[in-house]
């Protein structure tokens, strides 16, 4: 396909981009050149196809066919917003509607500074990133009209969790939403972040393409939870870049229970001795959903552990893709990398393509990976039944157990409970009263 054809197909985006150029947000912080470059790259290459190795099993044609226009500013209903906040009032809460900060800034705890498009610095707008972005990351760069930069001061321990809710308010046309979050944790600081992605309407079609950058200075602790609960007609293709400094600790739990096509690309660079990164995730697929997880863990320094557990539960005709790359560079001796990917297929038509990809260039390392795909363990099922527990309930217990293995890693109880309730809702499971 020629460049012109691709451009024509994305005429609505091109028009939107031209319009955006005229707005102050576009050139804020001198980012316009970077945005133009990103959009040109996108216009040249278009959306990825299944011929692209990284998108082999994820056909984004349903997205490419949309006449997307950039999401306009909108307001979300306050009752709806309140119902979508997993931490309620017990957090420092930011609400982004269609990618823009909505309402006044919350009262910030000491040690937290926040910037938006109005006062962002050049380095906030186009942060230095490791390789690994996608066409959707370029779209984000081209189209974001606001961003949320969260700076945690050195040595600040932020006890109140930071809660970010992204709401899409649909329009007449399918919308492109480009949320952008930058988190910088100062030396020896500590913070917890919970992001939720949701729709204001059950039937609005949107492509939500967030870009999240997280940078940890030496000895910082950041705990990140992402809960993606968009409606089953919308799309969510996200990129997260993480760079961790010496002796810092980053933990991510990515939970996907929504979207028609949902993909998370997570790129982590363990960029200091003794830094520890955990990437965990749980996804649930139902109906015709496609859930794709691509993670890249770069070990570039010695003595760094990384842990990764991704679990999926698939019903209906849903499909999942898991690709876990671990690169161990020659200097990264004493790396201890462990990757596990498990999927539970609850229907005959559900399927998963899973691919661990370990490339190790250091000789004194410990790297393990394991994948297990299957149905519910029949031995375990029989064991429960043999004690009098009815089949339906026994299955329910086993599915809960499978999910809670990942969800138990979420430290904030209300977030864990909200997440489990969403998983139960998708799989039509009864709640368990197990403490």
């Amino acid at each position, binding site marked *: 396909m020629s460049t012109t054809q691709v451009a024509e197909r994305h005429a609505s985006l091109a028009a939107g981009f031209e319009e955006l150029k005229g707005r102050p947000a576009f050139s804020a912080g001198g980012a316009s050149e970077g945005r133009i470059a990103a959009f040109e790259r996108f216009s040249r290459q278009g959306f990825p196809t299944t011929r692209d190795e990284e998108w082999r099993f994820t056909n984004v044609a349903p997205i490419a066919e949309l006449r997307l226009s950039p999401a306009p500013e909108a307001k979300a209903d306050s009752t709806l917003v309140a119902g979508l906040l997993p931490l309620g009032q017990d957090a420092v809460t930011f609400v982004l509607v269609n990618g823009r900060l909505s309402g006044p800034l919350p009262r910030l705890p000491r040690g937290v500074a926040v910037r938006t498009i109005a006062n962002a610095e050049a380095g906030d707008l186009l942060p230095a990133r490791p390789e690994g972005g996608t066409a959707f990351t370029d779209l984000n760069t081209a189209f974001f009209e606001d961003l949320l930069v969260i700076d945690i001061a050195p040595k600040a321990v932020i006890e109140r969790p930071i809660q970010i809710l992204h709401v899409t308010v649909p329009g007449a046309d399918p919308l492109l939403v480009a949320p952008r979050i930058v988190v910088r944790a100062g030396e020896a600081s500590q913070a917890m972040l919970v992001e939720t992605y949701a729709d204001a309407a059950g039937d609005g079609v949107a492509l939500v393409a967030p870009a999240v950058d997280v940078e940890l200075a030496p000895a910082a602790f950041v705990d990140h939870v992402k809960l993606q609960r968009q409606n089953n007609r919308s799309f969510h293709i996200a990129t997260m870049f993480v760079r961790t400094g010496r002796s810092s600790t980053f933990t991510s739990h990515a939970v996907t229970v929504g979207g028609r096509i949902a993909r998370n690309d997570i790129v982590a660079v363990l960029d200091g001795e003794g830094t520890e990164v955990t990437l965990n995730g749980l996804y649930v697929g139902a109906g015709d959903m496609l859930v794709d997880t691509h993670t890249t863990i770069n070990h570039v320094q010695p003595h760094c552990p990384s842990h990764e557990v991704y679990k999926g539960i698939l019903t209906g005709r849903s499909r999942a893709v898991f690709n876990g790359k671990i690169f161990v560079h020659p200097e990264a001796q004493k790396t201890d990398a462990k990757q596990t990917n498990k999927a539970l297929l609850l229907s005959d038509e559900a399927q998963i393509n899973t691919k661990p990809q370990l490339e190790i260039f250091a000789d004194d390392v410990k790297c393990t990976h394991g994948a297990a795909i299957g149905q519910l*363990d*029949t*031995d*375990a099922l*029989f*064991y*429960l*039944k*043999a*004690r*009098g*527990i*009815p*089949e339906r*309930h*026994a299955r329910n*217990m*086993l599915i*809960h*157990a*499978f999910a*809670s*293995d990942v969800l*138990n890693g979420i430290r904030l109880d209300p977030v864990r409970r909200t997440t489990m309730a969403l998983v139960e809702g998708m799989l039509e499971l009864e709640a*368990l009263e*197990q*403490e």
Partner: protein
Amino acid sequence: MLLEIKDLRVKAEDKEILKGLDLTVNAGEVHAVMGPNGSGKSTLARVLAGSPGYEVTGGSITYDGKDLLELDPEVRACEGVFMAFQYPIEIAGINNTYFLRTALNSVRKHRGEPELDAVEFMQLVREKAALLEMDQAMLNRSVNEGFSGGEKKRNEIFQMAVLEPKLAILDETDSGLDIDALKIVANGVNSLRSPERSIIVVTHYQRLLNYIVPDFVHVLSGGRIVRSGGRELALELEEKGYGWIEAEMAGARG
């Protein structure tokens, strides 16, 4: 009588394992089923519990007046059939106590009894746990996860103590137990002996029968009960080994 097995024939993976087995157990009796490896002892235990993977090709099992083979495993359990697994299953993510409370309440519901609330249940658990010398930590862990072989077997008998079955089948519960663990398990089982409760002890060795003294001993060989007797039969087997019975059977057939 509580259990009557008649001419039971069972296949697993196209191989006939039980070839016309008869066994009658009355309420309150303890029966030991002994036999060499591969004789079909564990198959008998698993078929009684309703384990998948077996095909009953002939015969009948009547339990408490009902056709046992018609009942799903969970219904059998609710009707009072309990098998202590030879290899208890580890289930990550399901709390041992929660599992047992769910099981007990399922059984109670089936019997038309009120479910136990958390407080009542914990009281019962504490009492039964003491019997098996189980500590609180074991109860709070996932079902059998990270348990030693001996702990798993103790957990089985602990479950039996809580569920109070009418018919308990212990499938090689003694295997993998050192003598101290064996005594604890046997004490637990003995404390559950009652005129209403029958127990079938499936074992390769007579050692367990020093502690759980059976009323009857049966020798299973080639898929059939080939000899039945009292406790002295177990001692005889211990002394002479199974070769003696097998040779005698071969002689009788020849």
